[in-house]
């Protein structure tokens, strides 16, 4: 019997939702087991990093990598898995564009530690903070250092395919598993390197069934503030819907259910900067010509940076805000 090709899945800075989405493919997961030898998948099985280090370079056929690069451990494993894998897939929004963990790029990373260990919800009267290295009788022990700026997977290593979504839709994962199994069996060919897989190329608006007219809005509304018309475009009703810039692939689930698109599938084809595209789209529909009136309408968008970069901050053109870059600069100096 010839050995089955090897499969790995890893989580870096992520929430675990991607793994759940994989399991949500139901019996499809058995195809993975039938066609692959699962060699490394920390959430599902026991394995040690040194087992991976001992593998031959390029010996893992397929690695699904989810999560952003938040600390030195993430970075180390990303580089390790790159070396050991033939096909490395940035799986899910975090690995693609930073996602929610990437929002920490708006602040100095020391503030994250402070919030976690010394705010009102934490009982830490002696202000004890984790130390990244500590001397014990057996020697020095380490925990990974936080990086000042969260990076996307392709900002650290070469990535073969991108599979967006927070998390990727299960039917999309199932389709990708099908494709990979067919490739393994020699019945199909891989898409060109660098392709986005398991998603559409167009926008969520393209998949959305709501009626669209010429949009002109006089105010932004929050979803709980009005009873939205169930058939009319949400943006037309003043609800800040991120559909115009977001990649299709989810079958417009949120707008269908009456909630605005929040952009979890990331930028659509041809969108260089997700937030910039949305600024363009939102500003175009505002029906006002006087600066004061425009400002008044824009006050309705409570947190524009969060609205436009909720999932995409680490993957955007600016990548991080001033406090995070300043921390990065201190970090670089310490390294040098």
């Amino acid at each position, binding site marked *: 019997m010839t050995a089955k090709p090897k499969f790995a899945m890893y989580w870096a800075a992520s929430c675990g939702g991607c793994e759940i989405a994989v399991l949500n493919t139901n019996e499809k997961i058995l195809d993975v087991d039938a066609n692959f030898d699962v060699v490394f998948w920390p959430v599902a099985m026991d394995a040690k990093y040194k087992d991976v280090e001992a593998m031959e370079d390029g010996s893992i056929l397929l690695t699904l990598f989810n999560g952003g690069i938040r600390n030195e451990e993430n970075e180390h494993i990303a580089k390790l898995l790159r070396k050991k894998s033939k096909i490395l897939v940035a799986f899910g929004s975090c690995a693609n564009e930073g996602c929610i963990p990437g929002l920490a790029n708006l602040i100095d990373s020391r503030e994250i530690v402070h919030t976690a260990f010394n705010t009102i919800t934490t009982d830490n009267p002696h202000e004890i903070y984790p130390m990244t290295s500590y001397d014990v009788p057996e020697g020095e022990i380490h925990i990974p250092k936080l990086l000042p700026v969260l990076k996307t997977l392709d900002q*650290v290593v070469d990535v073969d395919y991108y599979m967006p979504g927070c998390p990727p839709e299960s039917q999309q994962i199932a389709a990708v598993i099908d494709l990979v199994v067919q490739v393994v069996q020699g019945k199909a060919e891989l898409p060109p390197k660098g392709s986005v897989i398991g998603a559409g190329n167009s926008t969520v608006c393209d998949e959305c069934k709501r009626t669209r007219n010429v949009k002109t809005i006089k105010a932004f509304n929050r979803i709980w503030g009005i009873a939205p018309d169930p058939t009319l475009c949400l943006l037309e009703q003043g609800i800040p819907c991120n559909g115009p810039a977001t990649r299709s692939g989810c079958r417009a689930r949120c707008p269908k259910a009456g909630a605005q698109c929040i952009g979890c599938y990331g930028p659509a084809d041809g969108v*260089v900067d997700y937030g910039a595209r949305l*600024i363009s789209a939102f500003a175009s529909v505002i029906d006002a*010509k006087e600066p004061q009136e*425009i400002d008044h309408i*824009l006050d309705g968008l409570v947190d*524009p940076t969060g609205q436009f*970069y909720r999932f995409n901050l680490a993957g955007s053109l600016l*990548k991080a805000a001033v406090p995070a870059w300043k921390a990065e*600069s201190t970090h670089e100096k310490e390294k040098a």
Partner: protein
Amino acid sequence: MTDPFEPTIIGFTCNWCSYRAADLAGTARIKYPPNVRLIRLMCSGRLDPTFVFKALASGADGVMITGCHPGECHYIEQNYKALRRFQLMRRTLQGFGIEPARIRLVWASAAEGAKFASEVTSFIEEVRALGPLHWGKNDSVPTLTEAVIQQEEVPA
């Protein structure tokens, strides 16, 4: 002090008014500092916010957006669109810690060469006072480009 800080400004002009204002400033021999690099668009409404973000991420210290006066747009009302984008961009950039004063919107008709020159001059002084942007050319802070190069040099 080593070299004094010279801000790099990217200026977007519209074909019909503000570019001609810049032209007029030139033919009239009005002097203004050379820190601004002008890019001509057909209309201020063509200004995709991506251009501004890219400019700032690639080392510009400030971005100046110029167009026809309200009501005088060659394409009827696209300059209002530019105005709204400008106002929303400033709010968004604030979330990144970028001072709103680093982007300025100026209306200048084809006859306002002097106004164009004085706006450029005052904008450059304002940005100079703010200092270099951290995405830009600042010796004390690695520029984005350097950060990217460092990442690329890491063996995969």
